[in-house]
């Protein structure tokens, strides 16, 4: 019993809670459920009006509630904690390092100059936060200086203000140790000052220095809190007038407390929540300090002769000479190892969780393995194997596959699931394979298709040539895309493909996934696998971009001059510079009279006429990013791909100079003009694709509206609309490459990016239905 009671629980608890705090400082923003720039908007839900401020636990989406303006408290805390803790650690570390070195050095002097002592005395009289207050008062308000600079100022000034007190205590301790016998012995043996300091004095000091360091962290947080009460928030204070409101830029914890100070009388939780988290943070470090103190007290202190009522907790640990301590087994080491492991595993899990949250997540998955063999000039046989995974909670009664685009090509087909022939129905080009009851609970199915198809004369581009698994989400299978003039693709999952082929002589297999002269290719995370087979009659030409992406030009009859190829390469170079390297190892550009202009994953098809127009080229190349590498459900959201491609083309035109910018604007305006004439009233871009009345709804309208948005709000993100447009496009791509997006996600991202309410989109997007 005594053994249990006498453990140093403060130390254990301190180490664990500090680890947890550090964990949240590192991974907090990844866990945060909301963006700190996006406020909850008033909305109706099941007959109730939901409006800020929300109390804690009132809504599951906002577990700790929101502040008066609708910003999620939990998210702000998770974002802000890292500033609080790491700034405190940085200040404490600088103070300790400089203070220790100076203090030890001064401590070895025979006599400390009286002015140093006087200075220490005077300095310790003036409260540190007051000095910081007057230093930061002139610079902290109204974000004249940038946040990192303000943080740096704080760190430097706070360290400078704190150093004298550290110097003073280290100096006194050093002077005391310097009088001890073992120092005298070392001096007698000829040790110089540095050796004395590092070999004799420092080892005596190191425990108390560690305790001081953890204490200083709490002390710095306290100072930050005191400043925050006076509206000096670390990283800058935003001042709003009418009524006067002070807001923290960094959402650093003490800033959150400070900005909620007015909630003392009503909505107290807005103040309480960050205060309690701040309290937990400081208590963690205080516990660590107390635990360390306890440990060192029990290790080193002499026991008192009279009853003092103070008893050190924990068993003293003793060092034995010549013992290899590192290899010794002890429970403490195991504990440390477990803690470390938990930290790492937690980090990995959080990373995976936040990764899976980006974009639309479908609840099934398909892996394709396709074997293609060319039987004759016009005929192929295909053996398709799809591994289907059910990741939803639902039991499936059937499997849905979208049939190849031109169904007439299929002569004979045969479908097996898990090696059994199953009955199926065909409706509007969708195959419904009903599953027997025994398999309905299963999570994985191996589906096999064998079919023949006809193709190529001289060249053929194969897209939607295989049975594609329909996406499954929220207990429903995705619908086939109904006939419409704008989008022919079905909604597809981002999947991995493995394709092997066997061709007749005289033909070449061309695909973005190709690795030279191999007869199998594989590619991951694309929404469909397109390739082409061309006869040797085609003229081929390969070039490499600045970022080492291969571009292969294929022309039926070399109808275009070098300059067009040059233009395409310029476009690709621009996008690789401004957005990201192309998502494909190789891009195939087809230029032909009798092909329609189109962009497929890894492939751009240009009609000769449109290959002369740099805007068109840019748009089709941009579609490789926004329509191919980022997937959308064609039913409502295909406008994202086409709209952003147009926006990117506009950005390219802007980059090319005033003249091409005006041309691009003229083009967009013309399209919008046509839209106005064609559509009675207006039509939002996320209209169901079969109701879309004009193409411009899907491309020119979103592009134009985003350009307007950038022109109005660029000041929030950068210096000029051009720069912000590029940054916006590249951040969007960076965040969603290899994922699926929908209108809601687009809205979230864009609102967040420009810090605008969803009302800013209501004229061209239906913001009501998304997200319900």
């Amino acid at each position: 019993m005594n053994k249990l009671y006498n453990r140093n629980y403060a130390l254990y608890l301190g180490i664990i809670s500090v680890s947890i705090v550090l964990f949240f400082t590192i991974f907090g923003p990844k866990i945060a459920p909301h963006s700190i720039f996006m406020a909850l908007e008033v909305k109706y839900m099941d007959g109730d009006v939901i409006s800020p401020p929300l109390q804690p636990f009132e809504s599951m989406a906002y577990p700790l509630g929101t502040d008066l303006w609708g910003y999620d408290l939990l998210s702000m805390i998770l974002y802000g904690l890292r500033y609080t803790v790491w700034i405190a650690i940085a200040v404490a570390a600088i103070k300790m390092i400089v203070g220790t070195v100076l203090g030890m050095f001064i401590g070895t002097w025979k006599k400390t100059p009286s002015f140093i002592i006087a200075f220490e005395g005077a300095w310790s009289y003036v409260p540190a936060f007051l000095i910081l207050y007057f230093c930061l008062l002139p610079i902290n308000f109204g974000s004249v200086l940038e946040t990192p600079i303000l943080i740096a100022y704080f760190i430097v000034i706070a360290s400078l203000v704190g150093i004298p007190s550290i110097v003073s205590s280290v100096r006194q301790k050093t002077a005391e140790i310097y009088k001890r016998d073992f120092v005298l012995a070392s001096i007698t043996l000829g040790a110089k000052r540095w050796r004395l300091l590092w070999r004799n004095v420092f080892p005596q000091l190191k425990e108390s220095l560690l305790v001081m360091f953890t204490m200083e962290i709490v002390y710095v947080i306290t100072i930050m809190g005191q400043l925050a009460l006076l509206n000096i928030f670390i990283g800058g204070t935003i001042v709003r007038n009418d009524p006067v409101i002070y807001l923290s830029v960094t959402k650093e914890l003490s800033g959150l407390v400070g900005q909620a100070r007015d909630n003392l009388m009503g909505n107290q939780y807005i103040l309480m929540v960050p205060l309690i988290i701040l309290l937990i943070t400081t208590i963690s470090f205080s516990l660590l300090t107390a635990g360390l103190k306890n440990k060192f007290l029990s290790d080193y202190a002499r026991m008192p002769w009279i009853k003092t009522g103070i008893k050190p907790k924990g068993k003293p640990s003793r060092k034995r000479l010549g013992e290899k301590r590192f290899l010794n087994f002890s429970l403490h080491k195991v504990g440390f190892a477990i803690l470390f492991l938990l930290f790492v595993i937690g980090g990995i899990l959080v990373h995976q969780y936040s990764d899976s949250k980006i974009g639309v997540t479908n609840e099934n998955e398909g892996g394709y393995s396709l074997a293609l063999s060319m039987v004759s000039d016009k005929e192929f046989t295909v053996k398709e194997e799809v591994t289907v995974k059910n990741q939803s909670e639902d039991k499936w009664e059937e499997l849905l596959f979208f049939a190849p685009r031109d169904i007439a090509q299929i002569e004979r087909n045969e479908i097996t699931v898990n090696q059994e022939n199953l009955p199926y129905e065909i409706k509007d080009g969708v195959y419904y394979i009903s599953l027997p009851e025994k398999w309905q609970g299963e999570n994985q199915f191996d589906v096999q298709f064998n079919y023949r198809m006809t193709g190529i004369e001289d060249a053929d581009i194969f897209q939607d040539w295989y049975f594609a698994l329909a996406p499954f989400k929220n207990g429903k299978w995705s619908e086939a895309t109904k006939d419409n003039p704008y989008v022919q693709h079905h909604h597809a999952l981002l999947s991995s493909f493995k394709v092997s082929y066997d061709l007749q002589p005289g033909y070449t297999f061309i695909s973005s996934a190709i690795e030279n002269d191999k007869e199998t290719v594989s590619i991951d995370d694309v929404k469909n696998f397109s390739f082409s087979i061309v006869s040797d009659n085609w003229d081929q030409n390969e070039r490499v971009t600045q970022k080492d992406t291969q571009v292969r030009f294929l022309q039926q009859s070399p109808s275009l001059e070098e300059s067009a190829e040059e233009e395409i390469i310029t476009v690709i170079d621009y996008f690789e510079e401004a957005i990201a390297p192309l998502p494909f190892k190789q891009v195939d550009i087809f230029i032909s009279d009798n092909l329609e202009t189109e962009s497929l994953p890894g492939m751009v098809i240009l009609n000769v006429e449109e290959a002369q127009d740099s805007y068109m080229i840019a748009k089709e190349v941009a579609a490789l990013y926004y329509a191919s590498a980022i997937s959308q459900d064609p039913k409502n959201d295909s406008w994202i791909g086409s709209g952003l491609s147009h926006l990117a083309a506009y950005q390219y035109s802007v980059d090319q100079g005033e003249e091409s910018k005006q041309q691009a604007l003229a083009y967009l305006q013309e399209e919008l003009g046509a839209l106005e004439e064609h559509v009675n009233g207006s039509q939002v871009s996320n209209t169901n694709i079969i109701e879309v009345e004009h193409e411009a709804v899907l491309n020119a309208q979103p592009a134009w509206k985003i350009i307007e948005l950038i022109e109005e709000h660029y000041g929030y993100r950068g210096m000029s609309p051009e720069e912000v447009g590029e940054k916006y496009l590249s951040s969007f791509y960076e965040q969603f490459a290899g994922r699926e997006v929908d209108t809601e996600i687009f809205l979230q991202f864009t609102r967040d990016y420009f810090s605008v309410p969803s009302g800013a989109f209501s004229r061209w997007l239906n913001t009501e239905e998304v997200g319900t």
Partner: protein
Amino acid sequence: MVRYIQQMIIVIFLILFLATLPSIVLVDPTNGTVSLNFSQFPSIVGNFFKELSTGSLGTFYVGMEQRSIASEIGDNFFTSFYIVFVGVFISILFSLLFGIFLSRFYLTKIFRLIMNIISTIPDFIFIIFALLLAVNIYKWTGIRVVSFLPNGGALNIWFPMVLVAIAPSIYLFKLISERYFLIAGEDYIRTAVAKGLKIDRINFQHVFKNIEPFLVADLVKVLSLAIGNLFIVEYLLNVSGLTKFVFQSSGDPQPIAIGLFGMLFISLLVFAAMRLLLYLFKRGFIYE
């Protein structure tokens, strides 16, 4: 003596520096750089002393209204002085009592536990919690524990006194407990025990005598803590003390300097008073 004069000069210089800092630091909004304009310093300091030499303390603004500092400083000074004096007195009293004389009793164990818990809470958080508690007590019971009105009388001043006392108490109590523990292990205590002296006697005659120098040495630190919390407490609780001049003058050097000098004067007075009390205690109870 030389050191005290040096110390005073440094403190005075520091106060003048802090008071003028808002006027010295210049921020260039176009390219976001900060520059220090030290050439302003002599003229501001000159103006300050010129104002003093005319016998007035200068003026400060409340909103748009200009008021004379001299006409208001008296009340404010004494309000702050009472708060600091009582706060520091309470902290010394409690820490000596529980840190040395009652340290071995079970009751102190509870006190130590409470102190340990409070000490993990930063002062400003504790102050906010105390405020929240006071507000909620009023909400639940209708009993007005504190008043935020500057003319609230005792209700306005007892709470700040307690809040100001907390941080120095914790600091001193921990310091004295630690010292007590260390001193109790010394050989002269063993000698005293061996002689058969009672614990209370040892505490008075051996322990206190050896702790007193540390107490006196840290009195400045204790005062600094008290003054630091005074700023926060007066600001948050709307007590009209000296900090009014410091925080409400939006960078005007005159009232800031007057306020800070007033604080300096308060701490000198309290320091002297505490030394006197300790001296009397020593003369009364301890053999020299």
